[in-house]
């Protein structure tokens, strides 16, 4: 099973890169030089690799959020909203709190998670009380969160000296420090992957989440408390998405700038789908997608290829991997069946 997944990933990535190369050739670019530039600015070298990892943090965290939710049968599509709410709460904390860094940093991370939890909690409670589908509710809450945060940084928390909507910088004690080229934000990411894997595969509740995601009626008849589990998953995945937002602020611009959420959360959802909701796979694909996005910016500096090619590559990657997953499995099984049939015949 595992080796098949790795094979699927490697084959998918290779095919996607080849299709990307063909597109570049058609447009008159040199694909080899382009890929060389792309990976030179994202993977080869400590600084590019550190940047790739740092950029991967919001992708991986929101991807984990989506993967955990989907694998548990919870349709949390509210990562974008939970992310900006987490970022806003962390920013507000960073503006008004003044603690030593060893308290300030965990404190702001906690606030970010609380932001995500509160926003996911709204959807969870609406389902609990009124049986409203979390699918539509989380999607709608994204829009509310989006405009609410824009309002917050345009009026109450606006940096008076700035010309566009943004908050002032947060207290430098809440900035995530660098270790060499590496931003410490990546420890949060690695920590989250490890902790989530542990929850999912060692916790009793994690066992129930997994089974509920695969067959909720079986879990229910087996005595699992479906409602409680739903609430737990919703809040936990909300916390992950919120943390993603907080870390973006603390590691990067150190303030909430309009458009800060960008496409991180939707990319994260996409990565979860590509990873088939596997937690480790989400981490690996997250880093790879980040490498493409990060490298594209560098590539644009030294080649004529526009950085939009990164989005084209990403899209091809998603389509190829998702499309080939079932096909590859079916093909491998068919080959095995043929072989058996031939052995029988002789």
């Amino acid at each position, binding site marked *: 099973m595992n080796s098949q997944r790795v094979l699927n990933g490697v084959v998918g990535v290779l095919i996607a890169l080849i299709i990307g190369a063909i597109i570049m050739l058609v447009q008159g670019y040199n694909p080899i030089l382009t890929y060389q530039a792309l990976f030179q600015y994202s993977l080869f070298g400590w600084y590019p690799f550190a940047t790739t990892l740092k950029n991967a943090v919001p992708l991986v965290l929101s991807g984990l959020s989506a993967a955990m939710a989907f694998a548990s049968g919870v349709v949390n599509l509210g990562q974008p909203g939970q992310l900006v709410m987490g970022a806003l709460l962390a920013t507000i904390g960073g503006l008004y709190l003044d603690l030593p860094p060893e308290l300030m940093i965990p404190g702001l991370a906690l606030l970010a998670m609380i932001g995500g939890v509160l926003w996911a909690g709204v959807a969870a409670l609406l389902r609990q009380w009124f049986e409203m589908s979390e699918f539509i509710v989380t999607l709608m809450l994204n829009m509310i969160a989006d405009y609410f945060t824009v309002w917050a940084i345009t009026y109450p928390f606006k940096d008076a000296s700035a010309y566009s909507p943004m908050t002032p910088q947060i207290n430098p004690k809440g900035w995530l420090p660098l270790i060499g080229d590496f931003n410490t934000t990546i420890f949060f990411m690695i920590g989250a992957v490890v902790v989530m894997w542990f929850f999912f595969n060692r916790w009793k509740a994690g066992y129930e989440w997994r089974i509920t995601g695969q067959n909720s009626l079986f879990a229910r008849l087996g*005595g699992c408390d479906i409602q409680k589990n739903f609430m737990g998953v919703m809040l936990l995945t909300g916390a992950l998405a919120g943390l993603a937002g907080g870390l973006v602020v603390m590691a990067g611009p150190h303030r909430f700038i309009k458009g800060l959420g960008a496409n991180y959360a939707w990319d994260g959802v996409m990565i979860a789908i590509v990873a088939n909701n596997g937690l480790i796979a989400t981490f690996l694909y997250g880093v790879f997608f980040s490498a493409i996005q990060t490298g594209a910016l560098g590539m644009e500096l030294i080649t004529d290829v526009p950085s939009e090619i990164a989005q084209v590559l990403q899209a091809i990657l998603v389509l190829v991997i998702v499309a080939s997953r079932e096909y590859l499995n079916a093909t491998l099984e068919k080959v095995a069946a043929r072989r058996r049939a031939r052995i029988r015949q002789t």
Partner: protein
Amino acid sequence: MDNLIEMRNIIKVYPPNVVALDDVSVDFREGEIHSIVGENGAGKSTLMKILYGLTPADSGEILLSGKTVSFHNPGEAIAAGIGMVHQEIVLIPQYTVWENIVLGVEPVRSFGRLDVEKAQQLVRQKIDEFQFNIDIHARVEDISVAARQKVEILTLLYRNVSILILDEPTSVLTPQEIPQLFNELARLRDNGHTILFISHRLEEVLELSDRITVMRKGKKIATVEASQTNRQELARMMVGREVLFLSRRTTQSPGRVVFHIENLNLRASDGRTRLKEINLDVRSGEIVGLAGVEGNGQFELVNTIMGIQKPTSGRISVDSTDITHAPILERRRKIAFVPQDRGKMGASLTADIVDNAIMTHHRLNDQFSLWSGLLLNYPFARHFTDVLAEKFAVVMPSRSAPFRALSGGNQQKVILGRELMLNSPFILLDQPTRGLDVGSIEYVHDQILHMRSEGKAILMISADLEEIFLLSDRILVLYRGQIVADIPVEQTSLEEIGTLMLEGKPRDE
């Protein structure tokens, strides 16, 4: 008679390595009723699906009237005159009989408008031709299962099919409905149609067929003339050893009442009454069989007992504890439950065997807890799975294999083992042997009888009357949501229960 169809050296392997058909060659003659018998998993259905173009063979060839054919889909098979009626009936419930029959090949007038009169006339013609007694304007959801089966057959006859494949058509019928089906099939044969009849019920096969092909574990054992064989011989060929058709139930007097239902009513959200004034007791050391045609409230009763549906009124108690409104986990402390649908209710097919084996135990047995219940004790869970597999003779590739990699019989053993190891005073069995082969059925029956001798109270719902008679101490009949009979097994007969199932009351003499 000439061979109409010849299937030669058919091999079919289901990925990754289940050999469903192992070099099977068989021929069918024009105008005969040819039965294919075998246990579940013997390959009968697969063989027919290959003939019908539903699934491709990995090697071998098919000859129709001497010409090699290969159908890539059922449409091609129907065009060549071969049609199949499946176990599960696939009609549109909201459509009328005639609408279902013409669907897909409707006569049309200009601009593609449906020619209603012509369609009805054509359908009526077919019904008259074969003397099927059926109202073409009835909606399919309102007619009986037997009538639906007729509609399926008519759908094929309407398409001028001359070879009919029927996959276990009697499994959904009551004893009284079967002779009528057989009459119709015989009439079709006399009209020159060829009938291929899949079954594992030997008496009916002997009664109906001209020739019988026996299959076992993917191999053809023999094709025999029905007039020159008997039930014992067929059973021996089918199973590979002597089979006893005897009850192994010992006499034993039941103890105190363990499971008790009082005045239970259930009205569905659409206002229809699903369960009406159900009163039911199951005593310790007693097996109560609940008979009934499917869809008469069995599903709702199970759901209400298990806490999936809330009753409108009434009381359910186990061991004199009221569980009418208890959360499911509380019920599970006292109720072991083997559902009829393994993949939907009894297991997660994609999860591994360990994950399936420990369900419910993980909350009720403290040995599964670490860190005061926060963590699941996986080493113990694996050990527990091994114990279960050993105790219930589960054959599995490895503990970490996905559940669906197990055969149906082994899946059922895991589920049964899991539930019986809960050691609950009350056991609810919903069609515990559905879809199992003879060997597995015997095994499950032995386990159920063993639980009876240990003093468990057992309520068994089954559509298989033979099973009910083999195991039960008392038989209840569920008819339109009501229990219409409660009779000790010694004082009743298959015919009496069959009548009660169909009509809800004893037949007037």
